[in-house]
């Protein structure tokens, strides 16, 4: 069963990265794009740790993963604060994608 289950981790990480990229391409809402980016980041993190586990360098990959988590957390906070500031300043009247499309049609 070990030969069946552990490659599934690799496949699931690739699927998660693909889903994140798809979400990044199909959405135009900035928060949704950020969420898709975070989904993709989760897949990349899983791929990184899995590759470290396969290659046999778990310490190095876990160090890289810790750096990645810290940087992603700061990036997420920064992006959300920028989007909130843009929303409050009035540059974006709404973040609802459907309402934005209705405004564009008008």
């Amino acid at each position, binding site marked *: 069963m070990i030969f069946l289950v552990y490659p599934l981790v690799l496949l699931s990480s690739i699927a998660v990265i693909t889903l994140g990229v798809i979400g990044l391409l199909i959405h135009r809402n900035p928060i949704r794009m950020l969420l898709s980016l975070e989904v993709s980041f989760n897949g990349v993190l899983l791929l990184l740790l899995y590759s470290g586990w396969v290659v046999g360098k778990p310490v190095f990959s*876990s160090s890289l993963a810790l750096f990645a988590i810290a940087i992603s957390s700061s990036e997420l906070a920064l992006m*959300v604060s920028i989007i909130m500031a843009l929303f409050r300043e009035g540059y974006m009247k709404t973040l609802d994608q459907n309402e934005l499309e209705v405004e564009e049609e008008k």
Partner: protein
Amino acid sequence: MRILLELGILIATVLIIIFSAFVISHKSMIYSALFLAFLGLANASLFFALGYPLVAFVQVVVYVGASVLFLIISVSLLKEPKYWATNKLYPIAGILGVISVGLIFIYVFGAAANIHPSITSYLSTASQILSVGDYAVVLLFLLLVLSMVISVTVSLGGEKK
């Protein structure tokens, strides 16, 4: 016991893909952010199963506990789309998500504790970080401080008008 662990890994991988699809496809941004938190928790259980307890701990505490929670609270302050509550299946899916992630978390942690007695110990990871990436640690610290200062500045900038 190993089969139990692999069964847990199998369920966790399926949950990860399901939660990713929910994050992408859900119409409500709050629920999308919530499913992102579930995705992070399921990811952490996989990390623990692969033998990275420290990374799993940091993922739960820093990423899910701080960042995604901040994202959920920020999104909840925004204008919510009107159609968010039209489908009653999504709250039920959220409750089932909480239960399933909690169960898989306990299950995988319990199963992995007997098989992978922490392949990467905390001391070896810390010594690796400090020996190889000491310059990167300083840069990371400066980056975190800078991002915090910029976030506070940007957030306060809107109130002055």
